């Protein structure tokens, strides 16, 4: 049985879709079978970031309604044959998702894939709660600024109460992915410090993704940044995060800090 990850944030535009695609492609490059699932029904983006927008025939809502079988809706990536996309519908809204339908689709995906990564819509309404409902692991995407941190805190509270895991009395595994981290602004003190964010959210750190034009370039090319430019700084940071997700113990690189022993924070964990 595969692991189900929800990539979530509360606040919009913080980098959930970018991170879903980049982590998905990074895990698939380790030869593991990965499905990325777009839960942003009505505002789908993941197909664009994955460069698959012209290949969408059926979508998540079709599978939920029984208009299509799961294998008909899954799109295999042209570059990585272990990477698949289940797109969202652009013409419907979140009400088209049903609790039972989502449960059935996720259950089926778990049987075929090692990783099922769900790209959550922003907000705390139905779309976001259904995306997190069946997750085993949550990646909480946060930018180093107060509004994003507070929204993430709110989402963590929901992960601990509104998910199946929580209702069964189990603990949801949660990781913080700090994205759009600008080391120059951090030095000037215009941004929350990594330690402050960790102190407020008190969940372990999965990685720090630097602010970089490589991300925009990659999405314009229709490729996850971990595929289009594997050597770029954001791609390296996503590879590192993917290794940690897969259970490896890797020190977190803080963007802008010199590499080597001083630039690495070994075993960095939230208090």
């Amino acid at each position, binding site marked *: 049985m595969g692991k189900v990850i929800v990539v979530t944030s509360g606040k919009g535009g913080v980098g959930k879709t970018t991170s879903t695609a980049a982590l998905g492609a990074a895990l698939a490059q380790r030869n593991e079978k990965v499905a990325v699932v777009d839960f942003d029904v009505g505002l789908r983006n993941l197909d664009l970031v994955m460069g698959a927008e012209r290949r969408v025939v059926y979508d998540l809502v079709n599978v939920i309604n029984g208009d299509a079988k799961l294998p008909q809706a899954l799109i295999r990536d042209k570059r990585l044959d272990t990477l698949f996309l289940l797109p969202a519908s652009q013409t419907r809204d979140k009400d088209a998702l049903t609790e039972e339908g989502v449960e059935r689709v996720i259950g089926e995906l778990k049987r075929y894939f090692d990783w099922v990564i769900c790209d959550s819509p922003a907000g*705390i*309404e*139905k779309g976001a709660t259904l995306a997190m409902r069946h997750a085993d692991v949550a990646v909480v995407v946060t930018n180093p600024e*107060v509004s994003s941190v*507070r*929204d993430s*805190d*709110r989402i*963590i*509270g*929901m992960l*601990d109460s509104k998910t199946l895991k929580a209702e069964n009395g189990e603990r949801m595994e949660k990781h913080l992915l700090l994205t759009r981290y600008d080391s120059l602004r951090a030095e000037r003190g215009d941004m929350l410090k990594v330690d402050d964010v960790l*102190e*407020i959210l*008190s969940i372990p750190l999965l990685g720090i993704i630097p602010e970089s034009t490589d991300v925009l370039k990659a999405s314009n090319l229709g490729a996850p940044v971990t595929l289009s430019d594997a050597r770029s700084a954001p791609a390296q940071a996503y590879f590192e995060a993917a290794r940690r997700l897969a259970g490896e113990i890797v020190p977190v690189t803080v963007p802008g800090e010199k590499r080597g022993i001083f630039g690495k924070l070994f075993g960095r964990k939230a208090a």
Partner: protein
Amino acid sequence: MTKVLTDARSIRIKGRSFLAVVLSPDLPLDQWLERLDDLAARSAGFFLDRPVVLDVSELSIKKAELKQLIDDLAARKVRIMGIEGARPSQLTPEMPPAMKGGKPASDVEVTAQEPETEAEAEVAAVVSPAPQRQEAPQVRAIPQSLTIDEPVRSGQSIIFPEGDITIVGSVASGAEVIAGGSIHIYGTLRGRAMAGSIGNSNARIFCRRLEAELIAIDGIYKMAEDMDSSLRGHAVQLSLEGETIMADILF
């Protein structure tokens, strides 16, 4: 070091808790209403004078159907004080307000009183101004405490009118902790803390680091901007002297 935080003319905001009766209808609604009528016939006036909350979280109905349901209940003299579990799209401004954060309590028993005749029962249900009904179950008032072993996240409320609350962790911005007694926070208080909320001027608030948005004791409250900035970031004890909140920096 003790600082005066409140002037004498503060506004008091008090908490009040009621035990509400929760109605959770199921589909089809006409059958559920029939069963409700049956219950009402056996226990005249059960719903009169009781706060009633309508829980629709398990019910998938449209706005118009919800409105009809509220009207159907009103026709049976059941007035709804709030609606739980509704989607925003189901609600209109005319409807009772959305409620959340209710805490489950034990089931409320309906005492069946055998009506002499059907007609009499009906009269009793509609007319009786002082209905016979079972006393609302009492929330036990022995001093108690509640310990929370994790951070209180933004958007969460911890409400414990029965006694003290201890939080082993921080209270986030946008979170609130409301206690009938004192509040102890072994972490940073960034959100709101309201102690002595049902009228206890001896209640205190302790926190390892004060960054609060609002603090209140026995209804006397203080916003972040009214607090002395030198208290920020410190371990602080807050207590009430008369109508004045006093703050002491601890160690």
